[in-house]
């Protein structure tokens, strides 16, 4: 999955943005394109593209982006226009908002989930009054 999103980046903007494992950023990250975080970020992240926090990565940030995928640790709220995915190794504390949200088995998560979706037919029959 990471590969797929990265190839999309290179088609889009040439070079993928990456915060390497030995890098710490304190401040705000904004702009277009995708971002892969293997290092540490403290501050808000606001991007048009996808944000991926790898297994080694960590962030203390509110994240606003298209798709957000977390395998490392994140403390802060996520607001995605696309999908949010917490991988099996993710450790997340904060509120999630997105068009779709996936939490894999093994992920640790504390917070609220705000996701609009249609209830399955058997539930919507009793929940939605006609």
């Amino acid at each position, binding site marked *: 999955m990471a590969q797929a999103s990265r190839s999309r*980046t290179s088609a889009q*903007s*040439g*070079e*993928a*943005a*990456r*915060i*390497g*494992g*030995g*890098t*710490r*950023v*304190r*401040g*705000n*990250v*904004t*702009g*277009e*394109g*995708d*971002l892969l975080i*293997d*290092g540490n970020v403290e*501050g808000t992240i606001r*991007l*048009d*593209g996808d944000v991926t926090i790898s297994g080694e990565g960590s962030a203390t940030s509110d994240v606003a982006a298209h798709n957000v995928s977390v395998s490392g640790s994140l403390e802060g709220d996520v607001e995605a226009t696309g999908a949010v995915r917490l991988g099996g190794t993710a450790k997340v504390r904060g509120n999630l908002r997105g068009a779709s949200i996936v939490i894999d088995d093994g992920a640790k998560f504390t917070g609220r989930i705000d996701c609009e979706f249609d209830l399955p037919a058997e539930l919507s029959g009793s929940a939605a009054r006609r």
Partner: protein
Amino acid sequence: MASTVIGAGITIEGEIVTDEDVLVEGTVRGKLSAKESVTVASGGIVEADVEGSSFAIAGAVTGNISANDRVDLQGGAKVVGNVRAARITIADGAQFKGNVDMDV
């Protein structure tokens, strides 16, 4: 170790501390502190005091540059600030305004 890339569309305002190579194609404002080489690509903008081991600059840097080893200002580079390095090259076509301190 793999490097850190600030992509073309990305702006970072704040402090970056790293012990890896850094490639700046986007914008960095604040402070950049690296242990290895720093490359500012053509189109990259750095408005920050920067320190690192060696610098290759083809973009725009406003701020003081402090290198443990060397600074190379390539053609098209635009640097406003003081440069402190043991070795420095300024290529034809590079613009530079500031002082050079070669520690002699």
